[in-house]
Structures are given as structure tokens and as C-alpha cells.
């Protein structure tokens, strides 16, 4: 994970800017989902499409090795100027959405209907991964795409 305010898209450009950004697309529910800003726990950083956990102070921190229900999808990461200004990160809370994202645990094999959870995947990743039987279920796979997953959020049940 690299989160910093820096303009990396400087000529000579090192990426294909015409390629669709698959890091996070909300396909259903944008209008009604709760876009809530939460203060960022000390030192925490997030990218769009990652997930954040609320700590005891109600601040957003990165997931630990143990999945918990109060884990929320990051809608706008801390790499933005507004996040630097407010010290907050925008999370999607309390409403089911259908989302498509390239930010998931690619070491797993998925099928439609699989439940997803979030924990610290190592290497700083905080993406959805396949849920174990006792893990909180944060989402359910709707489509396994080429380089992305589409899922519906379940609210950590």
C-alpha cells in the first residue's frame, strides 16, 4: 500500500490512463448509502476499496488479524487533499451496496455466493478475503471477474 499526496502522473507517464479504474466502483446504492467521515487513528492510512475498522475511540484504523463486524468499506482514501485537511476518511456504512473492486485477496479462489470478510492480509493489505465459518460476513460474491470481484455488502452479520 502506498498512500501519500504526490502527483505520480507526471510525464513521462508510467501508466495507461485510459484503462478503467477498478479499485472501487459502486454499482448499486450510491444514492442511499451512508457516506460517513470518521477520524483517522494515529498513523493509519487507507486507499479507496480498502476496509477500515472502528477502534474504541470511534476512529478508523486498519484491520487486525481477527475479523470483526464493525469493518467498513473505504469510499475515499486518505491520499486525497480533503482527507489531509479534515483528518478524516470517508466510509460506506449501514447500507447494502453492490460494489466492484480489484482490491481483494487474490491468493484465494472465489465462487459466486462465497462470503467475504476482512482482516489483515499481511503486506499491509486490508482487502476482502474468503470468510471462514466463524468470521463475520461482510459481503457476498456476485461475480468473479477478470481482475475484479463484484460483491454485495452484508453489514458484518
Amino acid at each position, binding site marked *: 500500500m502506498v498512500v501519500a499526496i504526490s502527483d505520480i502522473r507526471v510525464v513521462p507517464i508510467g501508466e495507461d490512463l485510459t484503462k478503467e479504474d477498478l479499485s472501487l466502483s*459502486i454499482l448499486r446504492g450510491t444514492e442511499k448509502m451512508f457516506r460517513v467521515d470518521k477520524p483517522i487513528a494515529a498513523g493509519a492510512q487507507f486507499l479507496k476499496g480498502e476496509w477500515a475498522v472502528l477502534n474504541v475511540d470511534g476512529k478508523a484504523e486498519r484491520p487486525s488479524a481477527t475479523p470483526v463486524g464493525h469493518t467498513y468499506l473505504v469510499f475515499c482514501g486518505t491520499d486525497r487533499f480533503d482527507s489531509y485537511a479534515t483528518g478524516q476518511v470517508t466510509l460506506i456504512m449501514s447500507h447494502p451496496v453492490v460494489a466492484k473492486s480489484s482490491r481483494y485477496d487474490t491468493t484465494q479462489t472465489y465462487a459466486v455466493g462465497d462470503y467475504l470478510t476482512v482482516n489483515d492480509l499481511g503486506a499491509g493489505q486490508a482487502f476482502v478475503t474468503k470468510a471462514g465459518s466463524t468470521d463475520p460476513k461482510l459481503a457476498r460474491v456476485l461475480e468473479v471477474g477478470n481482475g475484479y470481484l463484484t460483491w454485495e455488502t452484508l453489514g458484518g452479520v
Partner: protein
Amino acid sequence: MYEGLDATTFNNMFIEQLDTVDGIRKTAAGGAAFTRAKIRELGFGRRVLPPQSVTRADLQRSTDHDTLIKIVDIEHDSKAMAINFAAEADERYIQGKRAAFPFFKIESEKFVKSEGELLAYDYPITKVIEENSVKDIQKVEDVKFIEYAEAAISITGKRLVSTATAVDRREMNSLFKMIDYDQLLADVCLMNIVDYDDYMIQPATEIGSPLASEITVDGYKYQTILKRKLVVTNKHDILLPGEVWAFAYLGHFFILNDVKFWIKKEADLVIWKTWEYIAEGFSNIKSVAKIELDVANPIPVGGTI
């Protein structure tokens, strides 16, 4: 202004002009006008990406240092879908992408000449300006242009290696298809004059008897090739023979204000230099492609054929 004068008279007038403040201003203005015309004519990067003049108001500053960039928007993706009457399409929360074009300075050497020695020249001083500062500036522009084009194809992989030893329609067709396949349109073809020479010796069985006959007499005199604008350069130290490029107009070449020409006379020394601030590059890296021919030694250097 200087037409009709012999070179010695011109150089005399040039030196005399520099003895007054107004003369320096006029001479600098005259030099600047001359420089601009030649750069536009000679830089091949400018013929591929037409230069856009910008002012300070069009640019953004860095928070970390005293340099300028021009931010260019990238068109965002969109699509439609076939759905049932009662359904609704996917949503798209639009998030734009932009690319930054950093400005840099290209400057000629600072030329110094004593007024006495200047009088010894049998050709106008503008020739010196043309042959030194103008050439150097345009060359750096083109060096950076090819450098950025190489950077683009290193990411997209739009580089074909051909076993052909000379460019022909087949090779160029393959080149253009690399761009056209991405739903773009190859607009410009850039090649070295050595490859252009090769193109002109294609047999009548390849290009048709009328064109072959015409080329044999007059050379290939058209501005386009396979409907693409043709740009030919003799700068083999920048664009190697055997390397033929195709471009779509999806990059930018910005010039901040204009080329600047500075000149002054200090005692008996005349000093002048030229510089400009530009930014160039490709914001859509798919708009660049290259084919490399199997041209081991394309330039005859003597011996037998």
C-alpha cells in the same frame, strides 16, 4: 528589414545598433522573430504534436518547489447497457484522472564574439544564430520527444521488431494497426530520411506503375502516406534509421509564452543566447507505436554495393 544588404554591411549595422538601448531591443526582437520561424519549421516533435502556446495563468505551481506544470484531463470511461424495462443500469461515481506536464527550460549556449571579429564574417550574423542556438534548441526538443515516446511503448509494448530490411507499405500497415486496434487513429508517421529513401525504391509491382514512374522522376512528393501525415527527419542521432514511428494526436506540446532571445554588447563583446520553456509528452500512451526494421548498416559509407 535587412533584405538587400550585403553581409558586411549587415554585420556593421548589427553592431552599431547594439550601441543604443533601443537598438538592443529591436535587435533582440528581430532575432526572436527569426528564431521562432526556424524552430517551427525544423523540430519534428512540433510537427507531430502541434505546439500550444500557454501563459502563466494556464499553469499550476508546485507546493514543494518553484516550478510549473500544466495539468491535462483524461477522458473518463463510460458505457451503456441493454436492460429490461423494469431494471436500472449500473451506477458510476465519476472520478477523473489527470496528467501533469512539467515545464523545463531549453537554452542555447551563451555565444560571445568581439565586434572586430564579427566584421570578419562574410555572412550575416543571423546565420550564426540559426546554425547554433536554433539547431541546439530544436534538437533537445526532439531528443525529449523520442525519449517520452520510448517511455510510452515500454509500457504498452507497442514495438514491433521486423525482419524487413526496408520500410514498405506492409510494415507501415502493421505499425498503424497497433494504434488503430485500440479504437484510436494513427495520424502521423515519423521516419528517418534514410528509410524514406528506401520507401521510394519500391518496385512497380508493389506500388503500381504510375506511382513508381512518378517517384523515379520527382521522388515521393506527397505529404501523406497511407492517409497519414508524413514527417521525415535527417536527425539520425535522435531517430535511428530503421525505426519508424506512428502517433495519434493524443499528446501535448506546450510552450510557455514564447522563445526568448537575449543579446547585449559589453564593451567590444557581443553576447547573446536563446531559450524557451516547454512541456511535451503523451497523456495517452496507447497513441504511440514503433516498428524496428532489420537495418544493420543503412548508410552507405563507401565500398562496393
